[in-house]
């Protein structure tokens, strides 16, 4: 049975855990220690949102993302703020028509950046490396 070695940038400790966490978790920390985004990407909901946006590749509303990943829109908005701070997501507000009304509302459209794609590709590659070793 393979054990996962969880590395933490926080105190430099190594802890052996039973194989209960997704293998990606090890890799997220391992690969993003250097640029300090390890803890950021470790957040499971955030990772799910980022992966969804990278897969879709087109600008999405917060509501669309929330429906797709099954997370409350307020939480999605929070995670998008964090991802935007780290340069993994870009967002802009667009005026969109509302059904049954002549008025328009500003909606936040978000899209994953090239850096996000690079980060996720790096993770996929690292997972293969860990799986092969």
């Amino acid at each position, binding site marked *: 049975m393979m054990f996962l070695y969880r590395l933490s940038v*926080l*105190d430099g*400790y190594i802890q052996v855990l039973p194989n209960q*966490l997704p293998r990606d978790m090890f890799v997220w920390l391992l690969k993003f220690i250097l640029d300090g985004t390890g803890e950021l990407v470790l957040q499971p909901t955030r990772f799910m949102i980022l992966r969804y946006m990278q897969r879709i590749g087109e600008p999405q509303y917060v509501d669309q993302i929330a429906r797709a990943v099954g997370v*409350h829109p*307020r*939480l999605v908005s929070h*995670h998008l*703020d*964090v991802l935007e701070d780290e340069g993994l997501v870009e967002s802009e507000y667009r005026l969109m028509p509302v059904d049954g009304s002549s008025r328009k509302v500003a909606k936040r459209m978000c899209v994953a950046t090239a850096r996000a794609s690079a980060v996720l590709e790096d993770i996929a590659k690292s997972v293969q490396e860990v799986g092969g070793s």
Partner: protein
Amino acid sequence: MRHTAALRNLTQRVFVTFKRTRCLLYILVVVCVIPGTFVVWLPFPLRLAFTYMFAGLTALALTFAALSFANMVRAMPAVFLAGRGTTKEFEPPEAREIARRMKIRKLPKFLLQGGTGEVGPSTNGFTRTIRLPRQWMEQLHRSEFLAALGHELGHLRARRRFWIDYLVMSGVVVGLTVPLALHTIPLIVNVFDVALVLLLATSVSWRNEFRADRECAKVLGPEGLISLLELLEAKYGPDEGSVTHPPLRTRIDRLMKLLDSQ
């Protein structure tokens, strides 16, 4: 840290879980009250059977309780020792505003502590000191760090209600002990007291944590705290709570309800 994982695995393998410990303590309390009250009037064979059952149950429950407390006891030296050599006083720029919104008149002292491993932030209500791990400040997103800060300030905000709970708990223990003491032997009363205090202390502490979460969510919104708790759950795995803290999943679920209500 390896010892921590080893202890956790060991306790899981021998079925010492916090939930089971609480169940045993509940059973012990009931046994103390119901058959324990009439033990002196029981005929000899029944009294002997009760004595063996009572002794076995007491030993089992207190052993489980001791093992459940072991993690907390183990963390204590780290909390005290780590705080001495590596703490530095500082004030997060947002702390004053958060405290103002929480209507905390006197700002507590903030200490940034390093080298404490897995020890998280803590609040000392007597000295009005909040300790925050340096690694959390460096690694977490600002919104999540502020959520941790808000939670600790929430403890200060709700400290009076904590003491009211504490006094009520003491009243309940004394109120139940005195009538029981009049009807049974002192040993049963002592065991009853220990079991009841262990149960009620957990309940008071959990309520205190939920209250601090709510105070934080009122001021900062629940998103940051939910995100932080999910991160902790992902790092350390699902938990069943401890003597001082409720399970992370329960706290997340309660905060999720606030997303729609606020």
